[in-house]
């Protein structure tokens, strides 16, 4: 937001955001905190239809073993008419916004938006909605990873975003060919449909590519778990 942006109240120009000193001994001792929670069971809280002016919306809270926490809300607007030239298939667009603290730069945000758009282009039955647009808005409310050393990385929240978009689409009654879910193993995420036989998206940032099949296998296991929780909620 440039300084002379008169449409927002930006406060004094030369103010610098708070910077917290990270000197070693005052930060929380490493081992003490995390291992006692290591055995914590993964817990997922799902609720749908909270945003009234959206066609469908969902809210997902995901707590994994070592108290990493992702709270995400997605709302679906559409299918709604699109101006401009005729399109025989719907056009899907995804926007991502960090509601509270801002960690990721716009580049990363746009990358996952394009990635998610590609995933859901394969899943939403776009032939059924000609001349219309389906706009999906993801609002990241809270996201924390427990060990401070590892800097924020966007892959942690991808599976939860995918799950919450799937639930929002279901809530909006938009036709999808299968429930999409994803599993993530340290720095890779693989999104599956058809019980893991078909991959609709892969995003891997760690370099153990030599055993790609093991990576996909681990993600498939996580995928099946996630899908199970989604189905349980829906039934």
């Amino acid at each position, binding site marked *: 937001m440039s300084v002379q942006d008169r449409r927002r109240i930006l406060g004094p120009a030369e103010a610098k955001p708070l910077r917290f000193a990270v000197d070693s001994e005052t930060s929380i001792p490493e081992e003490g905190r995390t291992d006692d929670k290591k055995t914590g069971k993964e817990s997922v809280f799902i609720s749908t239809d909270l945003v009234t002016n959206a066609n469908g919306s969902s809210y997902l809270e995901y707590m994994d073993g070592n108290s990493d926490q992702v709270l995400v809300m997605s709302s679906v607007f559409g299918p709604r008419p699109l101006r401009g030239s005729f399109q025989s298939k719907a056009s899907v667009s995804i926007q991502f916004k960090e509601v509270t603290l801002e960690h990721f730069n716009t580049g990363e945000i746009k990358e996952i938006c394009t990635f998610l758009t590609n995933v859901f282009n394969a899943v939403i039955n776009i032939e059924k909605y000609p001349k219309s647009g389906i706009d999906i808005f993801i609002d990241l409310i809270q996201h924390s*990873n427990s060990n401070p050393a590892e800097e924020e990385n966007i892959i942690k929240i991808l599976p939860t975003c995918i799950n919450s978009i799937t639930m929002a689409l279901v809530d909006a009654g938009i036709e999808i060919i299968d429930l999409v879910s994803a599993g993530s193993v340290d720095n890779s995420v693989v999104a599956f449909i058809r019980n893991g036989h078909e991959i609709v998206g892969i995003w891997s940032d760690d370099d153990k590519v030599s055993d790609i099949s093991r990576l996909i296998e681990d993600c498939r296991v996580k995928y099946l778990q996630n899908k199970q929780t989604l189905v349980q909620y829906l039934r």
Partner: protein
Amino acid sequence: MNTNTALQQDRHLSLETRPCSRGFEEFRDVLINDGNISRYSAKCQNANTNNVIGSSIVRSGKTFVITSITGGIVEETLSANNEDDVGEEELITLSEGSNRLAKNASVHPVVEIQRGRVGGPTDEEMITSERLHKTLLHSGILKKTALRVLCGVRRTDENGKTTKIYSDEILEEERKISESNNRRWSYVLYAKIQVFSRNGPIFDLCWNSLISALKSVQLPRAFLDERAADLKIAVRTRGRSMTIRETYDILCDPEKSLPLQLNQHELGYGSNYGIIDIDPLAQLAKEENEMDVDKPTSVLLADIETEAEESSIYSKLSLITNKDGQFKSATIIGGGSKITPEMIKRCISLSKERSKDIESKI
């Protein structure tokens, strides 16, 4: 506003109900919690990567507002030679004395309403942010003194062990070290207010959410590295000797923090009301004998919701009062039906109960 919503509105009113099936003077139930978003909230795990210092989630009916407050530090520009010039000091305090507003501070809010569109802020978002900023400034809830940074000093002795000394916690003679540097800083507060499922006027909802977030704000202690406190290095640059002040950013202490001082008695909570006449023709013939048919009866509605009400009510009141009925801010727009003094009194008593109810929930 097409005619049938007005007709539908009148028909509802005549049956003593509202489209949102609440009583005339019944408020939407409100739930408030801090949403575990700020770094100082109880169950927060990511304290060291989280720079939110205050937060609140307010849910009223279907609409809910998430507010997160972040901070910044700005160095105040002091007049260059004010240490010894007592007259100057006096002049400043004198002028501040008369100008009550100069003492108040405010928050810099950004209101965003989730409406399924991407783009710049709409009029409503800009107006609400501006109004929140001004109302908070004039309410005097937040004083400039509450935002003054008491800058500590971080002394790193030989083996790198750092100890932080804050002027108010230490002995007398150490105090003069930190007083010596004449630089003064103050905190700046930014509020990010997100509104979801907007279903009626949102100003009072945002105000209540902002106030409850401010109540949860903790200001982190700030300090400078010791050798930066009084270090000036002469640097020869192309013949001209110039003293540059080592630019060390002021850092915040991840552990220690102080709660933000708010003037408790100035705190007030918002509520909104609307007044509308029931068109006699639309009145169902329930009790036509005792009602003088041609005089339109006007009705007071509390907490306007649904598009029908919002578009058909022109006379609106928006009050911010504290629990014992003192006004903080009142906006009365007499657009359509007449607002009688009794109605205003009724609104005040209603808003008194409302702020008591909200206060109890924070």
